[in-house]
């Protein structure tokens, strides 16, 4: 596809002279950037209410956004082959740090997840693996025949499962599952046969009860129990789910209005500015607010898939699609958890929840996608 052809398919308002040239020269994809900015702006708006009208909180989140955008911008300047080239290195470093975490990691809330690095401060290696794992799987399939053979599938599974198990040992089952998912979606993109997928899902369904009884830690088992029957302990473990469902349900279609959610503003809703911010949004802005957010998410995901669709090499294509799907899975898991469809796992609502590293990781991913998109014509 030539540059000319590329220009033709863009929406007309982006095709104007100067505007496009500048964005393109800066390796920025305007539609994706616009979608991200819209979500983040909306997120800050919700965060202001969820955080008890704290401007301070909003400013700190804004700072994180800026750091994330710098990372995004820098990554977008690099050609995709750079990521392809560095994928194994990144993965290797990540794996090493995961092992280090288990040996010398800092403990917080009963789990070793943090690595204290001199000069850099605390760092969560599992966060890095959210990008490194799909990257290496994509790298592995970059010149393999598709759909993947049995042997290739096995290697890809190893690439996914080794870090996942290390993270599971911390123990951080939620992140382990998410990272597994981010790798598995690449396998799916690579054309893993539907039969294998069907068999795996069936296998997982059988394995789940076994996991429950033999693998899970007590606190994890309690979360599952609570998920299955939150009313059993309404003042203890079930509190979060009951209060968040109450927040969503009581908001109604129209919502109680911004800053007017009783569940959110009177502290009944725990973690209201982090993992449970979706409940604040639902309570105060109602179904309309949710539909707006979902529309923005859908736009961003659609744009990512579109970029992936038009990517020129296999690595970019797989990696791009993987990032898009991972992004969506975060949304699914968070909204599912907050609305009581899934057990409580510590997954933030992407780009909305208050929180550090996940925002930077996400924006780094989008930076890579922009790089994939804006470097196309330079490749043959």
């Amino acid at each position, binding site marked *: 596809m030539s540059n000319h052809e590329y220009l033709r398919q863009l929406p007309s308002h982006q095709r104007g002279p100067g505007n496009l040239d500048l964005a393109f020269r800066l390796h920025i994809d305007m539609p994706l950037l616009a979608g991200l900015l819209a979500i983040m702006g909306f997120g800050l708006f919700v965060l202001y209410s969820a955080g008890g009208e704290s401007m301070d909180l909003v400013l700190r989140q804004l700072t994180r956004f800026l750091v994330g955008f710098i990372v995004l911008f820098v990554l977008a300047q690099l050609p995709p082959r750079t990521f392809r080239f560095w994928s194994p290195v990144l993965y290797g470093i990540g794996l090493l740090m995961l092992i280090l975490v288990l040996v010398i990691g800092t403990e917080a809330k009963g789990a070793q997840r943090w690595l204290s690095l001199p000069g850099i401060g605390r760092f969560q290696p599992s966060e890095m693996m959210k990008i490194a794992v799909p990257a290496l799987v994509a790298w592995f399939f970059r010149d393999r025949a*598709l759909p993947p053979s049995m042997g290739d599938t096995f290697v890809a599974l190893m690439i996914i499962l080794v870090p996942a198990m290390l993270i599971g040992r911390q123990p951080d089952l939620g992140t382990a599952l998410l990272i597994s998912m981010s790798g598995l979606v690449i396998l799916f993109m690579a054309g893993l046969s539907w039969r294998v997928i069907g068999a795996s899902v069936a296998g997982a369904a059988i394995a789940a009860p076994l996991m429950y009884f033999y693998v899970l830690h007590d606190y994890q088992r309690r979360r599952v129990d609570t998920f299955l029957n939150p009313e059993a302990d309404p003042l203890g473990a079930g509190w979060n789910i009951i209060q968040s469902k109450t*927040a969503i349900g*009581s908001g109604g279609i129209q919502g109680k209005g911004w800053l007017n959610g009783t569940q959110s503003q009177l502290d009944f809703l725990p973690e209201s500015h982090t993992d449970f911010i979706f409940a604040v949004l639902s309570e105060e802005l109602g179904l309309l607010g*949710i539909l707006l957010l979902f529309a923005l998410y859908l736009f961003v995901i659609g744009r990512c898939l579109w970029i992936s669709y038009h990517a020129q090499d296999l690595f970019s294509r797989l990696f791009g699609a993987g990032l898009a799907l991972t992004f969506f899975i975060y949304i699914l898991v968070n909204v599912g958890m907050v609305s009581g469809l899934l057990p409580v796992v510590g997954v933030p609502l992407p780009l909305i929840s208050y929180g550090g590293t996940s925002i930077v990781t996400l924006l780094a991913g989008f930076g890579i996608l922009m790089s994939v998109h804006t470097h196309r014509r330079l490749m043959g």
Partner: protein
Amino acid sequence: MAGAFSPAIPTIDDLTAMRLRDRQRESQIIQMRLVWTLVFVVIVLAALVSRIVWLQWAQHDRFRALADQNRVQTQPIAPPRGLILDRHGRILADNQPDFSLVVIPEQLRDMEAALSGLRELIDIDEDQLERFRAQLSQRRRPWEPVPLRSRLTAEEIALVAEARHEWPGVRIEAEAIRHYPYGELFSHVIGYVNRINAQDISAMDEATLANYSGTNFYGRAGIERQYESILHGTVGYRKAETNARGRVQQVLDETPPIAGEDISLFLDLDVQRAGWNALGGRRGAAIAIDPRDGGVLAFISRPGFDPNLFVTGISLSDYGAYREDPDRPLFNRALQGQYPPGSTIKSMMGLAALEAGVTDWQRTIQDPGFFRLPGTERVFRDWKRGGHGKVDLHKAIVESCDTYFYDASLKMGIDHMSDFLSYFNLGRRTGIDLQGELAGILPSREWKQSARRSSWFHGDTVNTSIGQGYMLTTPLQLAQAMAISARRGKQHPPQVAMAATATTEDKDLILKDPNNWQLMEAALTDVIHGAHGTARAAGRGAKYKIAGKTGTAQVFSLASDVEYKDLDVSERLRDHALFVAFAPADNPAIAVAVLVENGESGGRAAAPVARAIMDAWLLDGKGNLRDLSKPRLSSTGGGESP
């Protein structure tokens, strides 16, 4: 591709073409998968939206109700407890702010560290700690404060406030608690309140339970218990928006509580205090009743206890000290102490004998100092060695001659004695508005048969005639008997609270010859004012005439022929001293009974206490007999607080 017979070696071009085809196929695979992904994303988003719609639309009402339940708390407001006042409006029990240390466990990271830290700072004993832990283990609303220690002193409040930042979740809260300004003075009549407990709650019906939803205290004894329902009042409610920590954000609606009614008592602080002080450090009881209206003017039982210690929960050590004190300060002697009345009932016995016609005021007997039961060798001694000589009824009362009554009792028989004395409220409860009153024993053939499984003997009759043997009375009963005597047989139950509406079914005592009342009063007056009266020391300088009778109650039954030397007997084995009286004799305005445990002599130990009580009630500020047709003025004026 080459022809069928060509060697199947692909050319470079072929390979390139294959690769391109493969690449194209691979692209198609991924592109198909991308389409599937988009389909998946849209389906899942639709599923999530339908879940939200389910929650927000189908289940909206349920969740709205839940959110309101969260948000709006209906909090009960405890009504202020009614005050207890003496007859002049002086406060005997009121409510005072108290500061207590409470803990909100949810806000505390390390409970044990905080507890040990607090214990270093202020005094918290094991007892309080145990109670605190018991409350912690009970099911409660999150963020509800649990009391740890009450009655913080200003110094302790300062200490805790200073260190409070170390323990978020440790708070000082104010509440109104009962306060008894006179401490032990009224302890046995006013009683006390203490923390309401699970037993109290389980005994309540639904309406009462709702009314007590905000209440922390419950009347446990005395007037506080008797009039709990009046003193308590009606609970109020506050509908308030609260946050998850229970902190009120705004009050939406409020129904104020209705304060409990104040209760005015017939008790007179001055009379009570006079009797209390006159008893001094002795163990004993004193009751004073205004015979005109049945109002209890003084209700004394010494030693008392400090009711304030009980309000917020008495400590084990304080309680242990009370329990182990040999003087038994928790024992209500006036209401529950049952003592032989001794000679104090002789006036009633005399009237019984007159009514039976076995004697009159002229008849005399010769008293050699003992009485031999006819037909036996059994001898009953008179208290006076050598006897009183020639004795008529008047002298028998004034000098408390036992032999006269021994003789008369056999003539009238136990059935008549028992029937007649029951008119003076002996052997059954007086019906005073206090709980736990004991009935004493008025012996009779039926009583002995059912209680002792034994038939009645003449010796029992003789013993009963001087208030010994099986006969037991409480100080309250004796005072009531005197009140009935002062009213010349008219019944009226004693009552502590002015609001009491007690009536009695008891029949008035109507003598065949009403003149006997007057003659008996004259005899009783000579007990105090006569030259040979047993209580003449107590009558000295009195501005009014007292009609009274002394008595002693044996603590220990001695064989009738054993001479007893009081000095050899340990203090606690000495006789109890008794004195009953009413005054002024011709127009009674007060009836009194005094018991002094191990006081030995009714005239010397008990009568002065009665005199002090009567003086306090009957005399005005200048020491003159006041106008008894008007209410007594208080010595300090109404509404005084200590």
